[in-house]
C-alpha cells in the first residue's frame, strides 16, 4: 500500500517538475517568437507550444542523462555473467531499457501534453498519417537514445569509470537534442553540428513529426535520418561489445 503511494507520488513529482519547466520554457520561447514578429523559423506561438509540451512529455522516455544500469554491471565486472547468457548483451539491455521507456510514456508523457494543451493551448497535426509516423519516430527516438547511452556504458570496458563521460553526455545531449531551444533556432553552424550527432534523432525529430511541423516528405526525411542513426549506433555498440568482451577475457575476466 505504501509502495503504491510512493510510486504515485513519484509520478506526481515528475509531473510537477515537467509542468514547471514547461511553463518557463513557454514564457521565454513565446516571448522570442513574439519579438520576432509572431513567426520564427516556421514556428508560431501555437506550434512553439506544441514543441514545448511534447518535448517535456518525452523527457521521461528519452535518455538524456547518460546513466544506465548496464554501466554499473560493466564497472563491477558482473557483465561477464551476461556474456554467458544466450541473448546478445546489447540487444537485451536496449530492449529492456526501451520497453521501460515506452511504458513511461503513460504516466509522464500523456499528462504533460494534456496539461499543456489545456493550460496553454497548442497546435496539433492535421493529417492522421502524422500521428502514425509520429509514433514510429517516437519509438525510433527512444531506441536511438538507449543505443547511444549503451555506447557510453560500453566505454566502461576500457575506461572502468565512465562518470565523466556520462556527465559530458548529459550536458551535451539535451542541448543538441533541442531540449531547451529547438535546434531550428540555432545559428547554421551549430545546427549542422547538432545534426552530426544522434541527439536530434532522440528528441527534436520525433517532436517535429508529432507536432505536425514536419509533414509528408519532410517527416520521412527526418525518420530516415533516425533510422540511419539507429543503424550507426547499433553497429558501433556491437563492435564495442565484442571488443570489450575480448578486452575482459584478456584481462582474465
Amino acid at each position, binding site marked *: 500500500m505504501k509502495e503504491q503511494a510512493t510510486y504515485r507520488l513519484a509520478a506526481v513529482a515528475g509531473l510537477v517538475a515537467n509542468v514547471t519547466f514547461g511553463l518557463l520554457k513557454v514564457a521565454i520561447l513565446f516571448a522570442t517568437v513574439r519579438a520576432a514578429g509572431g513567426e520564427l523559423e516556421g514556428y508560431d506561438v501555437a506550434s512553439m507550444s506544441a514543441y514545448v509540451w511534447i518535448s517535456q512529455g518525452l523527457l521521461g522516455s528519452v535518455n538524456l542523462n547518460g546513466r544506465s544500469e548496464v554501466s554499473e554491471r560493466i564497472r563491477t565486472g558482473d557483465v561477464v555473467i551476461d556474456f554467458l547468457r544466450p541473448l546478445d548483451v546489447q540487444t537485451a539491455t536496449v530492449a529492456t531499457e526501451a520497453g521501460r521507456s515506452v511504458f513511461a510514456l503513460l504516466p509522464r508523457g500523456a499528462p504533460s501534453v494534456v496539461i499543456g494543451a489545456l493550460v496553454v493551448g497548442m497546435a496539433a497535426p492535421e493529417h492522421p498519417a502524422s500521428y502514425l509516423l509520429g509514433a514510429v519516430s517516437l519509438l525510433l527516438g527512444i531506441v536511438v537514445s538507449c543505443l547511444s547511452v549503451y555506447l557510453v556504458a560500453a566505454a566502461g570496458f576500457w575506461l572502468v569509470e565512465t562518470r*565523466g563521460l556520462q556527465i559530458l553526455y548529459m550536458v551535451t545531449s539535451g542541448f543538441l537534442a533541442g531540449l531547451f531551444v529547438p535546434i531550428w*533556432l540555432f545559428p547554421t553552424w551549430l545546427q549542422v553540428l547538432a545534426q552530426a550527432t544522434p541527439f536530434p534523432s532522440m528528441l527534436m525529430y520525433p517532436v517535429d513529426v508529432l507536432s505536425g511541423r514536419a509533414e509528408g516528405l519532410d517527416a520521412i526525411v527526418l525518420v530516415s535520418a533516425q533510422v540511419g542513426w539507429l543503424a550507426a549506433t547499433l553497429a558501433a555498440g556491437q563492435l564495442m561489445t565484442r571488443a570489450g568482451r575480448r578486452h575482459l577475457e584478456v584481462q582474465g575476466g
Partner: protein
Amino acid sequence: MDLASSLLVGLVELAEVWVLFQNVPRLGGVEFTQILLVFGLADFCFSMADLLFGHCDNLTTFVRAGTLDVFYLRPQPLLLQLITSDISLRRLARGAVGLGALVVGLVLNPIEWDLGAVVLLGLAVVSGLTVFSAQFVTAAGLQFFLINGSEMTNAFVYGGRYAASQPASVWSRPLKVAFGFFFPMAFVAYLPVIELLGLPGPQWLPSWFGWCAPLAALWACALAALSWRQGVRHYQGGGG
C-alpha cells in the same frame, strides 16, 4: 574530465540564452549584453550555493538507506554536517562561467559606478547566494516527507535557477506569483539588474524591487527554516 564537464554545463546554459538572442535583438525588454548580467548573477550565485548546500541533495539517499542516524552521533548539527561533507573543486569550476558572464556584463553595460550601484550589486550577490542556499535547504527538509519526491523539489531548485536567469517580464501571472514572489527568483538577478541599468520593470515587479533582494532572502530563509524543522521533526517522530 570532471572540471571540463562542469565548465561545459555553465557554457551550455549560457548558450541556451545566447541562441535566443541570435534570433531576436531584444527579448523581454532586454538586450543580450543586459541578459548576460542577469544570467551571470543568477548562475554565479547558484553555483556558489550549490557548492555549499548542493550536497543536501543526497539527503534522500541517506534517509532511504537508514544511514542518516550516523550523522546524529556526531556533536555538530545535522545541517552543518551535510554542508561541509563535500566542497569540491568541480562545483567551484561551475561558478567560473557565471562569474565570467557577470564580469563581462558589468564591463559591457553603461553603469554609473556610484556608491548606490556598488551597494546594490553587493546586496544582490549576497541575497542571491542566500536565496539559492535556502532553496536547497527547503528541498532537503521536504525530502523527509517525500522520500522519492526529489523531482518535485527539482522543480523549484533547478527550475528556480532557470527562472532566475530569465527576464521576469516574459512570465505569465501564475509564473510571477510562483517565481516572482513565492520562490523569489526574480529578486535574485533580474530585478537588481534592471534597477542597476535604469530599466523599467514589468507589471507587479517594479524595478525598485531590486533593492528588496535582502527581503526576498529573508523570506526564502524563513521557508527553509520551516521546511527543515518540520522535516527533521517528522523524521525523528517516525522512530528514526
